C-alpha cells in the first residue's frame, strides 16, 4: 500500500547549514521530483527521508510513523541510488532475492518474485548474469527491480540515471513512468535535470540554493506548456546559482 509522506521543517547542518527548513507533503501515489541547484542538499534530503541520515531539525513521518530516531517504522522503503549498489558476486536474480530474505519470503516464492520483477524491468533472460556482465543501464534496471521487489510503500530515487547516456536515460525515464502508472507507488525522485523532472514527475519541488528552502512547488499537470515550464525552472535555477555564487561577471 502506498502511504503519505510528511516532511516537517526538516533542516540539516554539516558544519554549515545545508538545509535550512523544508516542509512538504506527498500524497499516496504521487510522483514527486526534487529539483535544485548543485549542492543544495537534494540528496541529503532524500537520505533523511529514507532514514539513512538523521535530520538536525524537524521530522519526517511516513504513514504517520516517524522515520528517524530509535524505533524503526514498519513501512517499506525502496531506494535506488546514484550507483546500482548491486553485489557484484551475486547474479541479478540473487541480488533481488537477497532483499526479500528479511521479509521472510523464501524458496520458490522468492525466486518467482525476483524473476517477475526482473522481467518487468526488461531483464528476462539475464537472471543468471553477474552485474559485471551486463551494461550500466541494465544494472540500474536491476537496482530498480530490487527496490520494487519489496513492494515499497515509498520509492526513493537519487539521480538514478545520472551515469547513463542520453538515450538510455530517455528509455529509463519512460520505464519509471510506466512502472509508476502500473503500480501506483509513491515516488520521491531527486534529479538536477529539469527536462527529466518535467518528463516524469506529477509534482515538482524546486529547492533554493544552500541553505535550502523550498523555492517553488509546481503541479506538473499539463496546464502549463512543457517548454514554458522548462524555461521557467531553468530561470529559477540560474537565479539560485547566482544568488549563491554572486552574479556571473559580464565581460
Amino acid at each position, binding site marked *: 500500500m502506498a502511504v503519505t509522506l510528511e516532511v516537517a521543517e526538516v533542516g540539516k547542518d554539516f558544519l554549515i547549514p545545508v538545509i535550512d527548513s523544508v516542509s512538504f507533503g506527498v500524497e499516496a501515489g504521487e510522483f514527486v521530483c526534487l529539483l535544485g541547484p548543485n549542492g543544495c542538499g537534494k540528496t541529503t534530503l532524500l537520505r533523511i527521508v529514507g532514514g539513512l541520515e538523521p535530520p538536525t531539525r524537524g521530522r519526517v513521518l511516513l504513514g504517520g510513523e516517524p522515520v528517524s530516531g530509535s524505533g524503526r517504522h514498519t513501512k517499506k522503503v525502496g*531506494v535506488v541510488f546514484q550507483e546500482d549498489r548491486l553485489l557484484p558476486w551475486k547474479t541479478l536474480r540473487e541480488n533481488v532475492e537477497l532483499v526479500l530474505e528479511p521479509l521472510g519470503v523464501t524458496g520458490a516464492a522468492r525466486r518467482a518474485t525476483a524473476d517477475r520483477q526482473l522481467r518487468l524491468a526488461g531483464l528476462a533472460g539475464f537472471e543468471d548474469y553477474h552485474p559485471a556482465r551486463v551494461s550500466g543501464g541494465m544494472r540500474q534496471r536491476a537496482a530498480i527491480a530490487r527496490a520494487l521487489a519489496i513492494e515499497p510503500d515509498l520509492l526513493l530515487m537519487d539521480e538514478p540515471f545520472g551515469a547513463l547516456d542520453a538515450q538510455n536515460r530517455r528509455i529509463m525515464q519512460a520505464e519509471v513512468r510506466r512502472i509508476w502508472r502500473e503500480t501506483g507507488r509513491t515516488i520521491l525522485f531527486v534529479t538536477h535535470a529539469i527536462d527529466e523532472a518535467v518528463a516524469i514527475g506529477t509534482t515538482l519541488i524546486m529547492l533554493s540554493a544552500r541553505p535550502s528552502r523550498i523555492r517553488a512547488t509546481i503541479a506538473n499537470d499539463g496546464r502549463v506548456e512543457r517548454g514554458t515550464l522548462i524555461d521557467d525552472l531553468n530561470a529559477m535555477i540560474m537565479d539560485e546559482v547566482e544568488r549563491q555564487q554572486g552574479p556571473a561577471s559580464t565581460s
Partner: protein
Amino acid sequence: MIDWKQKLRLPTLGVAAVIVAGWVLLSWRYGAYVLPSPLAVARGFVDIVATGEIWRHTLASLGRILVGFGGAVVVALLAGLASFLSRTARGVIHDFLSVLNSTSVFVWIVISIIWFGLSNWAPIFTTFMITLPVVASNLVEGVENVDRRLLEMGDVYRLSGRQKFTAIVVPSTLPYLVAGTKVGFGLALKVSVVAEIFGVTSGIGYIMNYSREILATQMVFVWALVMILVMTATDTLVFNAISRRLDRWR
C-alpha cells in the same frame, strides 16, 4: 603453436641452460663440497624419492606448518570478525599487528626454544607468530575496505547483521583472505624450515642442516629443490585454483 611456446617459456629455459652450464664449470673449478654438480644433485633427488626419505621430512615440515599456520589463519579469522563487529577492537588489533609485523623471526625462534625446549612446538610457535600478522593484516584491511555503500544498501533493505555479514562482508573480504593466506603460506614454509634447524630431528630444515654437518652439500641443494617444488605445487594446485574460482563473477 604459439601456445606451446608460451607454455615452454623458451627464454627462461635458455637462461636456465646458461646457468646450469656455468654451474657445471664452477663445480669443476671449486669441487663438490662447495658446489656439487647438477648431476650429483639430480642423483641425490632420485635417491630420496626412491628411498621415500623425501616424504618423511616433507610431511614432517608440512605437518608443523599445518598446525602453526592453520592456527594463525584461525586466529586471523577471529581478528577479522572482531574488527568487523567493533571499531575499538579494530584499532587495538591494528596496533598489535604492526608490533608483530616488525618482530624478527629470530626473536620467536629463540623465545620458542626457551619456552618449548627442543620439541615440535618450537617451529610451530615460530610459524604461528610470523604468519599471524601477515594473514590478519590482510583480513582486517579487507574488512576495512568493505564498500560502505553496499552496507548502506543492506541497511535500506533491513538485512540483519548476519545477513550483511554473509552476503556482503564475507564475499568482499575473501580475496584479501586468499591473498594473505597465499603470502602467509610461503612465509610459513620459509620460516618453519629455519626453526627446524634447532631441536627437532625431522623436517626439511633439520635434514638440510644435517646434510651440511656431514659435508653432503649436494643434499643441501636437493632439499632446497624439494622446498621450491612444494612451494610451486601449492601455488598452482591450491591458490591459483581458488583465485580462479573467486574471479568467476568478474
